[in-house]
């Protein structure tokens, strides 16, 4: 075999590809000679952290991924979960952190584009999107620019593509100053009998390139995402891809039309490491070789080298194995949508990944080894330390409870995100039942009279930092609660694990403990992980982000007529606390915002209690006697009550049983809900709580124009709304257009 090397492989070149000496030795062994420059690029693309999960694989295997509802778990483009009646929901969450910090608009936009492609590659039409965003402290000089760019990038792509953005998170913390997080979630709907996967079948079949043309954008992007940042980061801008939502929308329609013809044997989108990764996955999974001729690849730049074509991360592209007899029909669809359709290779029986360019073979590698033999590390890790419990009395009470509550709901992490989500199309497709701003986004299932799906994205990074195990549990538990609060039965989840440098044992220890917590919670709450993504090396100049394992959950509502909303309480409804009095102020928003400290342990999550209370609340909502519901999370019961009042534009008069007033009002104990019940059903609700052994307390009545809590809080709903709605527009310096126009 003659594969000419055009460029000498030096130790420096190997290091630039993010490979260490040991890994390179293994590559030489598997290649059975020194790799060519193009081959080195291919190995590096397949073996970087982003594509190979080499640091995390060992631990990801411990997560629960199965259940009767799971059709496809991790390993495919997205997870597939049965929702009955022959329908499945297809979903995944994925990070686009590094590109978004370098170029916020395009980074965020292509993050959305990538996750949408993962979903429709499987044959599902996207029906909902969410975005979990973490920025640095508001006062940091880059934060506003990043918020503005990321939000318009998310909107710019999702709105044009035409998927409703129904939920997400936005948080600020100094630990994200040099490394923001953009975690994009998408879900789609498909028929259970028409799901497409990447496993190729059959020898000598055409490999077809679909979609947009290949350019030099994003060359080496996946390798970039697998390294820490330093001050040279600005130089990395050329590795960020550019998104084209119009082409993606055409690609969606073309792919769905194509699938309907029965022409598709296997299909894989070109995401990280583009052509390389998609071709290797299709071949390796199907135990087939793949031969590509790069001269046939549609390009939009001249003189592209094989290296560049193989590593380009140009967006809106797909690779497919085609039933040859359907070629003309398939091609006509792509011509109609004005997209490229080019046969660029074929499947072979020799298990080799063979690349030809300008009459020469530029790479010839063992395909199984590229995909499956990536190194797997058991990185050294240390068990994270723990904090001793802090009793409520060690925390100073506020001088004025009303002022403290106003401060909290007007703080960066708790205030209204309206400024953000009004830039997203939340209504397109005409199926949105609950908008952002409630517990979970809800979208009805098209073609079904009563069914709907609920979506929520959750994690409390400060808890994970304080106690990775409890914090991991809490992320899943809060997601579960948010789904339950709408009346949805939680079905399954996706995880997007954002951490620092795994080569540091402390960081690795946090990762390990968080996964243990997530796994236990997913098992106890029956929310298996069906897809996900790991983003490591989220560090700049040696400082890591807060550990942020984002959980995206999906739940099923049987009849949306009986669903609960945060703002659907009516005057006269009785308010119940499901759960017990608040006690936990360590790591609370109260502690951080009012006392200026972040200390002590994270709240503990009792998973049995979480499930028992969740099932009780779910039953109450489904039987129709809960008029409104909201989970209690950041800021405790006082913030939860304020949020319900603002959402329903109704006041409430509450009398809580109180031991420590500040802990009762602002404590962040877990597994708690507020449920509003029509007066007529209140006694029955109480009797059922007692019967189920679920702790509850009748805490007050909805009505009036003020929120009153004991003799501590007395604020008008209008005043609450002003505080709640002001922070974001003020921060972003939004000009009221009416003023500008006058």
């Amino acid at each position: 075999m003659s594969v000419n090397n055009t460029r000498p492989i030096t130790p420096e070149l190997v290091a630039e590809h993010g490979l260490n000496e040991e890994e390179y030795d293994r590559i030489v062994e598997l290649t059975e000679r020194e790799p060519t420059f193009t081959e080195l690029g291919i190995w590096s693309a397949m073996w970087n952290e982003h594509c190979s999960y080499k640091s995390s694989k060992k631990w990801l295997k411990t997560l629960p991924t199965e259940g009767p509802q799971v059709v496809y778990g991790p390993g495919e483009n997205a997870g597939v979960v049965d929702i009955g009646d022959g329908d499945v929901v297809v979903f995944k969450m994925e990070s686009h952190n590094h590109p978004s910090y370098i170029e916020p608009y395009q980074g965020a936009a292509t993050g959305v584009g990538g996750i949408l492609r993962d979903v429709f590659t499987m044959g599902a039409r996207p029906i909902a999107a969410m975005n979990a965003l973490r920025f640095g402290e508001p006062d940091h000089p880059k934060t506003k620019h990043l918020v503005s760019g990321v939000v318009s990038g998310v909107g710019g792509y999702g709105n044009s593509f035409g998927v409703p953005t129904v939920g997400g998170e936005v948080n600020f913390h100094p630990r994200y100053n040099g490394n923001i997080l953009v975690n994009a979630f998408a879900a789609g709907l498909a028929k259970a009998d028409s799901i497409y996967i990447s496993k190729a079948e059959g020898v000598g079949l055409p490999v077809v390139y679909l979609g947009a043309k290949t350019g030099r954008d994003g060359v080496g992007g996946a390798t970039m995402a697998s390294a820490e940042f330093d001050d040279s980061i600005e130089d990395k801008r050329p590795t960020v891809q550019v998104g084209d939502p119009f082409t993606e929308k055409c690609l969606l329609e073309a792919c769905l039309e194509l699938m309907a013809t029965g022409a598709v044997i296997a299909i894989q989108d070109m995401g990280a490491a583009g052509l390389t990764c998609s071709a290797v996955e299709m071949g390796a999974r199907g135990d087939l070789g793949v031969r590509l001729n790069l001269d046939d690849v549609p390009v939009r730049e001249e003189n592209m080298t094989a290296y560049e074509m193989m590593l380009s991360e140009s967006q809106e592209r797909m690779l497919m194995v085609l039933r040859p007899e359907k070629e003309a029909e398939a091609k006509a669809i792509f011509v109609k949508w004005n997209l490229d359709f080019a046969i660029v290779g074929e499947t072979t029986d020799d298990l080799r990944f063979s690349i030809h360019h300008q009459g020469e073979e530029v790479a010839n590698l063992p395909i199984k080894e590229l995909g499956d033999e990536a190194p797997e590390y058991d990185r050294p890790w240390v068990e994270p330390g723990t904090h001793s419990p802090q009793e409520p009395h060690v925390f100073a009470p506020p001088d004025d409870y009303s002022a403290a509550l106003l401060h909290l709901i007007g703080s960066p992490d708790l205030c209204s995100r309206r400024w953000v989500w009004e830039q997203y199309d939340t209504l397109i497709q005409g199926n949105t039942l609950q908008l952002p701003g409630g517990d979970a986004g809800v979208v009805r299932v098209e073609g079904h009279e009563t069914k709907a799906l609920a979506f929520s994205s959750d994690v409390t990074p400060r808890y994970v930092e304080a106690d990775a195990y409890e914090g991991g549990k809490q992320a899943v538990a809060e997601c579960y609660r948010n789904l339950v609060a709408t009346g949805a039965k939680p079905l399954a989840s996706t995880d997007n694990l954002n951490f620092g440098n795994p080569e540091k044992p402390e960081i690795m220890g946090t990762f390990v403990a968080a996964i243990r917590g997530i796994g236990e919670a997913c098992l106890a709450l029956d929310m298996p992980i069906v897809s996900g993504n790991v983003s490591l090396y989220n560090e700049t100049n040696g400082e890591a982000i807060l550990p942020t394992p984002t959980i995206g959950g999906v739940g099923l509502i049987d009849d949306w007529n009986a669903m609960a909303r945060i703002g659907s309480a009516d005057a006269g409804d009785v308010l119940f606390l499901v759960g017990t009095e608040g006690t936990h102020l360590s790591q609370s928003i109260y502690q951080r915002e009012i006392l200026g400290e972040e200390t002590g342990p994270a709240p503990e999550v009792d998973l049995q209690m979480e499930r028992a209370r969740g099932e009780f609340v779910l039953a109450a909502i489904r039987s129709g006697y809960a008029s409104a519901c909201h989970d209690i999370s950041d800021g405790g019961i006082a913030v939860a009550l304020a949020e319900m009042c603002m959402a329903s534009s109704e006041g409430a008069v509450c009398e809580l049983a109180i031991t420590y007033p500040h802990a009762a009002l602002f404590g962040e104990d877990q597994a708690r809900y507020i449920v509003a019940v029509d007066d007529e059903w209140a006694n029955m609700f109480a009797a059922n709580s007692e019967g189920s052994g679920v702790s509850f307390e009748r805490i007050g009545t909805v009505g009036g124009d003020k929120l009153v809590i004991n003799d501590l809080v007395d604020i008008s709903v209008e005043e609450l709304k002003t505080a709640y709605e002001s922070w974001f527009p003020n921060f972003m310096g939004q000009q009221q257009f009416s003023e500008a126009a006058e």
Partner: protein
Amino acid sequence: MKATVVQFPGCNRDRDMIAAIAKIGGTAPQLAWHTDTELPDSDLIVLPGGFSHGDYLRAGAIAARAPVMDAVRAAADKGVRVLGVCNGFQMLTEAGLLPGSLMRNAGLTFVCKEVMLEAVNTDNMFTERYGKGEIIRCPVAHHDGNYFADEKTLKQVEGNGQVAFRYANGTNPNGSLNDIAGVFNAYGNVLGMMPHPENLIEPAHGGADGRRLFESVLGVLQRDAA
């Protein structure tokens, strides 16, 4: 009655529009493609919302020059009713079928929210089921909905009763001149509007104020046919 929805690459509220017409009119609309040079026999032609051709030139500008637009223009000239919503409104102004133009929102960002609309001219087959001056709810979702017309055109539009809807109660989301949210052509058979009545037609949408627009125009058609 025969309604036809014209589809352009990059349209994304075409499915919402098709669903609304099917649900309210009882029959799914016919579909036409942007490269078609003829339209099926139609009593109502709808240009739906979205980002035709990515809105990569001006919003609606490329679609306004699509082959199908000659057929739309010919039908409009013959008195066939034409409805353009959002991107469809932008196409109609770009094609010269409606007066004025739609600029970038004054706030410079995409905006998706519910606004209030005043039904201004209800002496028309699109709006006859609203009360004159009635205030209704309706969602908007656009980046380029800031209605502008030069002084002379604006005077004509206002003077001829061509304003169909105005943003009401201070809810103008985009800086539109005179709070204009939707306009008719001089003959009243072409309506363009930025808000999305098709997204507020049933209990699942939290209201049905948009429904009457379709009931008006489809109902009229059914009466004509009978």
